[in-house]
């Protein structure tokens, strides 16, 4: 049963991801991106990482894509015309895809990966409570530094966009 669900959600995620890349209309692409994120979230649920699934929906499907849509709206992006592919781009992407394929096949067919499926570790930080405990003990310092990161980003946005008074 779980296997069946995995294949269904994986297929949805992949199909939507392809749709993001291939849709001409940027708004449609953003909408498919939401569906991709939802598919990913359901995969997380099946791995019993409920917290991650909720975050995936709230942050990515919610906030990030809404931001994308705002930018699309502000920039008034028109439907993209069919761009002509340069031969060099074509060759480069084919080579890139081939390397990716070799990598994925090589990694998934190695014995180490097969050995894992039987002995999955417990998802230690997967519940909200565990996550909170870890965040305020083990990861206390990175969390505080992240606070400064956000502060710097905020100051930066103001500095780079505020009108400077000429006096």
């Amino acid at each position, binding site marked *: 049963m779980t296997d069946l669900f995995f294949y269904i959600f994986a297929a949805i995620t992949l199909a939507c991801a392809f749709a993001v890349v291939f849709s001409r209309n940027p708004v449609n692409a953003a909408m498919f991106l939401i569906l991709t994120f939802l598919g990913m979230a359901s995969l997380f649920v099946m791995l019993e990482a409920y917290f991650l699934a909720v975050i995936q929906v709230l942050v990515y499907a919610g906030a990030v894509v809404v931001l994308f849509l705002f930018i699309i709206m502000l920039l008034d992006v028109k439907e993209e015309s069919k761009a002509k592919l340069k031969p060099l781009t074509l060759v480069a992407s084919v080579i890139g895809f081939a390397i990716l394929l070799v*990598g994925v096949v*090589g*990694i998934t067919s*190695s014995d*180490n990966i097969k*050995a*894992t499926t*039987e*002995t*999955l*570790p417990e998802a*230690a930080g997967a519940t909200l*409570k*565990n996550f909170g*405990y*870890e965040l*305020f*003990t*083990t*990861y*206390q*310092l*990175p969390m505080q*530094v*992240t606070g*400064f*990161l956000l*502060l*710097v*980003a905020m*100051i*930066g946005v*103001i*500095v*780079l966009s*505020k009108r*400077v*008074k*000429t006096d």
Partner: protein
Amino acid sequence: MPTETLKSLGDIAATNSWGAIYPELILGCLALALLALEVILPKFAHGAIPRISILGQVLLLGYIIIFDPAGCCNGIAFGGMIELSGTSQALRIFFLLASIFVSYLAMVSFENKTLARVEYFAITLVVTGALSIMAMSNHFVMLFVALETATVGFYILVSYFRQNTLSLEAGLKYLIMGALSSAILLFGIVLLYGAASNPAMAGSSLDSMNFQNLRVFLEANPTDTLSILGMLLVISGVAFKIGAFPFQIWIPDVYQGAPVSTTAFLAVSSKAAGFAVLLTLTKVFSPLSDWLLPLLSGIAALTILFGNFAALTQRNLKRMIGLSGVSHAGFLLVGVVAVQTVPEATNWVLFYLFAYLLGSMAVFCVLAHLPKEWDADLSLDDLGDLAKKNGFLGIALAIGIGSLAGIPPLAGFIGKFLIFVAAFKAELYVLLGVGIVGVVISIYYYFGVIKAAFFEVWSFTDEDEKSDAPAVLPGQSLTALGRLAIVFAVGGSIVLGFFQGPLGSWLSGQ
């Protein structure tokens, strides 16, 4: 949650010894204080804020050097997040010193410009703290968070002259390249985490982003494909930050467009932080040295050659210094490779970094005092007759450039010499040869700068144009503080060339 887990988490929380990172905490608080002062102080007193920032940093630096030169609390802290050591203490002092110079450069180059000022100094302080934490990180989560804090700060500092299109262009390019390199680094970290957390493998652990645990895993599985891929990606991500070949493409444009203070910050502090991370990571990855050493050696040789050849044809001063910085990264990489077989070479790499700091800052201080509205446009022609117009700046430039070029008896020469000794001891003869060829090439463009500053420029249109507007002489904005900064950088370059005693024994005593 079971009680044992809670108890062990409590034990970890007990190792959160905030006192161990007091310099970074003070830097953070100082940054917040500067922002608060801008609100509190009346408008006419705002000019004092940069001075307060510099004073605070000088006091902190003085305290560390006098009372805490070896580091008060060396060892692992924060549940394995950071590891304090002599090296991290030396780098802490390095970043603080660089940050003082950067603050001074910003003070000079922001004069007569309509810009928000205070924020620049606050961000500089936060970035310095983040770089310092990056140098002592012992865990990929800590490393990445500190790196991102510094990088986000740099995005802003690079595009700070937003009326100037070159600065904005530089900011955009740095943003895109920085995001790309972060993505590569993160992907590498994820692969390593995935490989080392696999319970079916020997030496796996649940906390495999911790460097010690990762090293244990790599020792048990030195041929694991996933880990090798991860290592490759992590090294590539770091190579972006230090501007090593083939990830150096962003350097000329970003260095040229950024304000001169940011260029100095990127060239000195950001590069040093990259090398600190590289020194830590090469220890972690040493079980994979069959892959790691050829990779790093190849990068080092190509970086030296590329940096020097590309700098040959540059006439824009900041582009030239940026590309020469690429070749310095190559020399430092030779040092990092040598460290793998000659452990005491770590101190020699640090010495090179200090020599590079003093030489670069002397040059950047001179650049900041040249009369030009936007320093992105500074070219060799702007140095014309510098020595005659302002002898002090001319001599400072000559000594700074000489130290960067590695002319004896200046500090840069000793730095390069130590790196070559390390390479010789580690039997890296090919790298040694490439390094020497690199030095010979670099003499050409470094002396081009000295020639431009000391010999007369001969041109046809001089007379007519001069009569229109009285030319602004270089160095008119030079204050007592500026003279002190330049004298410190130049003096340091000379003294360390003759007499490495105090710094050398302090570094090797760490």
